[in-house]
């Protein structure tokens, strides 16, 4: 969408309200939840570049997410790196692993691409849990993951760390937004629309897909590292296929293919998981019912709902 759709202004505002809510709602609850939402949003935005923009259903993004977390942990705790260079390395590791996956996985398409990425990620999950035990701490994982130490600010307090995460989040959205409207993003949209014609008019489809996979891997690696440092802990659970499943759910609930949709999906998912589990011990089943209902009745996710509401409100000035 080269020109900014009117309804995405509303989406942007809702996302801003979510992101800035800890400034107004004091008390740890909102802060803790929003920190999580910001991190998972970076992961979801990166994932949607592959899933929504380029139309590839990857089921292996947990691998890049988890590896990013492990790279940051090992570089800081064992090699004494500072936080920021380690965070960059975590992103790079996620990107390079994604590139490696794409060389394998892009030989097939559709369901088989999803299954192959799932299998590759599970391979890394098993290795991390058993064979690479002395590197990854095995099934028990590693604790003591540090937080950034910049300009003397104590980021170990969640409130300060919130600002760091907010900055990363704004950066992530800006870059993703730019990528989507750039010629690179247009080419990807063309490939999703009509792969045969895109190849035929001169786009190197495989190379473009691999490069967006690389970018999405960087997003995943960095968000994995940020989550590990938020909870001071990393474990193979972050590499498990259910983590890949979570991000697909979040992006679909929010509205795939839109810049702000995934953030709404993340917010809905985390609030549901957090709030429901305090309300009833049967939150697991209710979450399942909500997924089923949303998948059937909200094909374009929350973003789609916001768009419908917006169009109904501003009926008279629609072109």
């Amino acid at each position, binding site marked *: 969408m080269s020109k900014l759709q*009117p309804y995405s*202004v*509303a989406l942007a*505002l*809702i996302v*801003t*309200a979510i992101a*800035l*809510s800890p400034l*107004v*709602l*004091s*008390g*740890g*609850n909102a*802060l*803790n*939840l929003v920190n*999580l939402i910001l991190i998972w949003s970076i992961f979801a935005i990166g994932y949607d570049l592959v899933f929504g923009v380029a139309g590839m259903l990857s089921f292996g993004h947990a691998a890049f997410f988890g590896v990013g977390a492990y790279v940051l942990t090992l570089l800081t705790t064992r090699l004494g790196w500072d936080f920021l260079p380690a965070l960059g390395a975590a992103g790079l590791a996620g990107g390079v692993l994604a590139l490696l996956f794409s060389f394998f996985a892009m030989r097939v398409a559709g369901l088989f691409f999803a299954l192959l990425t799932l299998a590759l990620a599970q391979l890394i999950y*098993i290795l991390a*849990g*058993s064979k690479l*035990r002395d590197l990854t*701490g*095995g*099934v*028990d*994982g590693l*604790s*003591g*993951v540090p937080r950034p130490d910049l300009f003397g600010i104590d980021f*170990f307090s*969640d409130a300060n760390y919130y600002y760091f995460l907010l900055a990363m989040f704004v950066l992530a959205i800006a870059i993703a937004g730019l990528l989507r409207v750039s010629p690179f993003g247009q080419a990807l949209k063309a490939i999703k629309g009509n792969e045969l014609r895109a190849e035929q008019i001169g786009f190197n489809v495989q190379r473009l897909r691999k490069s967006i996979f690389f970018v999405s891997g960087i997003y995943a690696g960095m968000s994995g590292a940020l*989550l590990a440092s938020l*909870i*001071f*802990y990393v*474990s193979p*659970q*972050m590499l498990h296929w259910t983590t890949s499943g979570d991000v697909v759910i979040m992006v679909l609930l929010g509205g795939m293919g839109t810049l702000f949709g995934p953030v709404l999906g993340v917010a809905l998912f985390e609030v549901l998981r*957090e709030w429901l*589990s*305090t309300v009833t*011990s049967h939150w*697991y089943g209710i979450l399942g019912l909500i997924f089923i209902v949303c998948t059937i009745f909200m094909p374009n996710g929350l973003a789609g709902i916001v768009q419908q509401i*917006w169009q109904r*409100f*501003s009926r*008279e*000035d629609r072109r």
Partner: protein
Amino acid sequence: MNRLRTTILGLACATSFGAAAMLPAHADEPDAFKIGAVISFSGPYGIIGEGMKRGAELAIEHRGGTVLGKPIEVTWEDSETKPQPAVQKASRLLANGAHMIFGAVSSASTVALQGLTDQRKVPLLVTISADDRITRPNGSRYTFRTSNTLGMEMRMALEFTKARGLKKIYGVGADYAVTREGWDFYRAEAEKMGVEIVGIDYPPLGNRDYSVIIDKISKTDAEGVILVVTGSDGVTFLKQAGQAGLGKDKLLFGPVLQDELLAAAVGPAAIGANSGVRYHFSYDSPANRKFVEAYRAKYGEWPNSFAGEAYDGMSWFLDVVDGTKSWDKEKWVDAFAGSTRENSVEGTKVMRACDHQAMQVGLWGVVEKGEAPLPELTMKITDVFQPEALFPPCAE
């Protein structure tokens, strides 16, 4: 822009700034003693969470629900048996002013919580996770464990091997750091005692088919088979071993192989299996008799080891806190570090200052058929090993 759209923009801004008015007042002297409980109610260890909750609630009830003169408020959070949610929910509880954290269940979650509670300087009471790393010499200042450690349970297995005079042993250990370390220790000590290790296998965690390994073992002349595996893997092995008749001429035992719950899952094939027992309702001590009576009166069933250990740990810690007469967490930590519990449900327990691990007796039992009102398959305590044999001196 037209009128309608401006109203929507205004609405969105209002919601985000209108909430500023609700700033809660911040009290200095807390009006309640808040316990943040992070244990698993779903996932593989869901069953453990229920037992722990009942034991802890009974402990609080038995002291009239108050400590330091203030009512006790417990918030129960589901860790889903995964470290990530465990830490996320614990940090929320800490943000809401929890004075102590009770939990978690799986060692991985507990290790994860330690990172948080140490950083936030809040006591963490552990009454089930057995990983030795949780209570390392001068390790985590704010963590205390009143239940067994895997190291202690491996030593119990060693004592049992010595007591029964087993000469040829086959080992099966989950491919998992803690179990491999436990096995290496057992092997070294057993070989010193002249025991021959006939073989060892490390099937993956959560393995669903042990028939090949069972077949291999049945062809050896091993007298005993030590199983260093976790809950459901142990059940799977014993069920499949039962069908292959492995238990007929070989003694199957393990540090934490069976209890009433796991025996019920194995069925008749469990009979004759020997295991370390973390807590048992049949242990004869005045405090235990009182607890078991109250538990059966309230819940109508025998307390399992999770309930027993939770009850014991919680009452001990709350008594220590009451004793300090202060809301300063550092005082609680110092008081608990050197305290002795004469009337614990398992006799005397001594909290070691150097690693905050409670030294206690080790119970060992065998699965046998139980007559009513005992459960159908119950543990009969056959040995009680003394702490001195089970806990190496702290310097180690």
